[in-house]
């Protein structure tokens, strides 16, 4: 018979209250290249997780294949390192059947957007209760430097020696187009921001899509330098904060406003006036504004919004059936099974 209790076995488990970053570090030696942005993301995730207030046994990292995919091994949680591109599907099976767990699906830009693109958009559409982290370095790291679906047009890589012929995905736009209920972006070198975004994602009841720009010093070094270098950072990071007018720059001297034709533009606050600035509303039901913000910059060399673009509540897959299923599973026993087997027209042959 089902041991319903095991779902809650760890409730008073590993001393939740006192968990620290170190508790989330697994014994395995990290094997990324020196200087890889994945280290920073890993550290931020480990630093953030104690906040969840969950015993580490209730957290699962499901990853795909790629440098980023190695993540699973470095977390002292349950971890499932799947095959290339399928992490969202593995995570879906796990999350809908084990709603007591905190399930994180993580992969690279190739893993999640190239081979895994379909699972990603369907998980978002379905609003599966998983947190999806896409570690975007705009290149294939593990396979040593081919173009990825986020590599820019004209990019020269091993597989595109004459330059890529393809326009890259705008991952946030794709997620919004798929109907994502939560969409955010952050960048590896800004640990506090990463943690803020992780927090928001973890608080979101459905599928949360988080793009994390991260640097691959080996195959695509400094792709996000404008966003992270001390000198250029302020001028490039447009931090979205719900309820606040969108301003940025060292002196917060620039901002985002709507043009008369409805499109968004970057303006000088001094010229446009504070009132002209767009007030960021992540909770708007219509995703169109978030979509427009996602298109504000075409290249990371331009001022680029980061933060939570969208966070709206809508039915979470599995929620509506959850209680019925759990109750059913608790209740079912030999009697119910007997009744099931004897369903339909039966007849008896006497001995």
């Amino acid at each position, binding site marked *: *018979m*089902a*041991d319903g209790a*095991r*779902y809650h*076995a*760890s409730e008073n488990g*590993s001393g939740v209250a006192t968990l620290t970053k170190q508790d989330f570090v697994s014994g*395995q030696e990290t094997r990324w290249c020196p200087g890889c942005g994945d280290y920073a993301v890993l550290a931020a995730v480990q630093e953030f997780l104690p906040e969840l207030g969950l*015993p*580490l*046994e*209730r957290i*699962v990292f*499901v990853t795909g*294949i790629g440098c980023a995919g190695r993540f*699973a*091994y470095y*977390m002292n949680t*349950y*971890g*499932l*390192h*799947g*095959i290339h591109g*399928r992490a969202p*599907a*593995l995570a*879906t*099976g*796990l999350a*809908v*059947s*084990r709603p*007591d*767990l905190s399930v994180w699906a993580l992969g690279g830009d190739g893993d999640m957007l190239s081979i895994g693109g*379909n*699972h990603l958009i*369907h998980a978002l559409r379905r609003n599966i209760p998983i947190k999806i982290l896409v570690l975007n370095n705009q290149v294939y790291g593990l396979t040593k430097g081919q173009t990825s679906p986020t590599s820019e047009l004209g990019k020269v890589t091993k597989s595109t020696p004459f330059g890529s012929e393809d326009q890259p995905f705008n991952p946030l736009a794709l997620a919004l187009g798929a109907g994502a209920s939560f969409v955010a972006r952050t960048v590896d070198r800004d640990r506090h921001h990463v943690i803020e975004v992780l927090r928001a994602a973890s608080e979101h009841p459905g599928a949360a899509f988080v793009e994390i720009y991260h640097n691959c010093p080996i195959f695509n070094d400094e792709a996000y330098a404008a966003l992270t270098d001390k000198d250029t950072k302020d001028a490039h990071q447009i931090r979205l904060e719900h309820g606040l007018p969108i301003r940025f720059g060292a002196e917060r001297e620039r901002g985002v406003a709507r043009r008369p034709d409805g499109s968004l533009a970057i303006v000088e606050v001094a010229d446009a006036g504070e009132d002209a600035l767009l007030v960021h509303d992540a909770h708007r039901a219509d995703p169109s504004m978030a979509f427009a913000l996602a298109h504000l910059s075409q290249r990371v060399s331009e001022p680029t919004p980061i933060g939570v673009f969208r966070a709206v509540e809508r039915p979470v897959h*599995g929620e509506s*059936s959850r209680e*019925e*299923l*759990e109750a*059913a599973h608790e209740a*079912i*026993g*030999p009697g*119910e*099974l*007997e009744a*099931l*087997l*004897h369903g339909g*027209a*039966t*007849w*008896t*042959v006497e*001995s």
Partner: protein
Amino acid sequence: MSRTVDKDRVVIRIAGDSGDGMQLAGGRFTDATAVFGNDLATAPSYPAEVRAPAGTLRGVSAFQIHFASRDILTPGDRPNVLVAMNPAALKSNVDTLESGATIVVNDDAFSKRNLAKAGYDANPLEDGSLSEFRVYRVPMTSMTVKATESIEGVSSRDGARAKNLFALGVLSWMYGRPVEVTEEWIERKFANRGAILTANLAAFHAGYNFGETADLLDVRYRVKPAALRPGTYRNVDGTTATALGLIAASVTSGLPLLFASYPITPASELLHELARQRSLGVRTIQAEDEIAAANMALGAAFGGQLGVTATSGPGMDLKAETIGLAVALELPMVIVDVQRAGPSTGMPTKPESADLLMALYGRHGESPLPVIAAATPAHCFDAALEAVRLAVDYRTPVILLSDAFLANSSEPWLIPNIEDLPRIDPRFAQGPNLDGEFLPYLRDERLARPWAIPGTIGLAHRIGGLEKEDGTGNISYDPENHARMTSLRAEKVRGIARDIAPLEVDHEDGAELLVLGWGSSYGPITAGARRVRERGGKVAAAHLFHLNPLPANTGEVLRSYRRVLVAETNTGQLSQIVRAEFLVDAESFTKLEGKPLLAAELEREILERL
């Protein structure tokens, strides 16, 4: 007055347009036959298209039932009786009839227009082309309309629609089926639809009474109840039996069932069947594709659930990589392959059992796993339970092979006692397993690894598809470790041979020929062999339920016969396996027509070899 003739067994085929309700009539006749106590087997056949134009050959839907006063094994090769509701139904089935068969036609439907639609130049009822048959012309439509015309709220169109129940009435009379079973069903089914209920009952009675009173039908047949094993029975098709087996496994193991699947004929029915069982704790997901479905099932397995996915051939191709991952992860998982005729899209609605080698080898690298094949519709129940048992006990994906024939055919099923079901114990890891540490790949005596599920304190661990160090499960590129892990994985699966029933032979003294089968060839082989014996031939038969590993005594059995004949609906896949494994010069009887084997074909093949 009609005379009554005793018969051992009868094969009836009811055919009509797909809008004529033939499956319903067939199903009702089956229920009554089952309750009456005959052994039986049924097979429906549907048009390939969703809605083919009415009256055309393509639009014909048929239902065949074989019932007998003794146990039978197939839905029958050649019908003795055909009920044809229109010319197309007659035309597309007449060739399959045994010579001298009885044909009952709905005379009203043999209009010029319908004859033309069916491609008849002349009316076959009148041109003598049916002279080898005994033909009864019954104006079913008009008689049904007449029987229902006085019912308030029933138009003559509504009435005409009930002609399938009229036909059912006729057949019920001809074979002395208990009318109450059908009456009760009609009452239940149309409980809230007053006039329709009355009309259907009236049509059914009219048909029955037509037999009783009309002089036209001059014979009745009596097929005595069969001496079946005592117990409570129900009629199940392979789809239902598989669903019940999976649910039973879920209940007895305590593992909640997560069934993830992507629609594909003929596997979709299993999804439909299970989707309705929410109250039994079954969760189903229609995934975005077969790859996702397999991964969802596997993800659920990681979480400690019974993860199952089902598909047909093309979908199996897509699941291969994920099944390989499950082999590496050594997690329990069941993959049901309802085989259909290939290659590629092939003939989606037609049965064929040609996925055996794919089940065994259809993944890159060395990735052995257990393969089981269901033999009959009812056996799908046991096969599903067995698949789950092996998956859970050995922490391995298991492929369960069914096919389009098994999925749709039905037969009586002796409902088992719950206590007799195999015990399946998940044996979740509860704590450290070596010196206070937890080693996710430390094996037990079956070579199975611990199943430690998220939520279990102290057992947090990480596993994946990269080669793993023996014991710890950590990533390892060590050459000797890879050799060891490869052989441990193989050994684990091979070891299952100790844990399954030996190959049983239906032997006959003096038999030098053994007929070997797997999957749905069970019925035709057994029936074929029986017929040979009835004719005095000596033949042995054996059936493989486990295809990997093979039962431990398989080689011994095969080598003890002078000749071995393997019968299968592919180009000789099992034959190839036993030849390689045991170096026996197995012969093949193969058929690739998108149809099940027939008992008569087996009879012929066996006789040729005696």
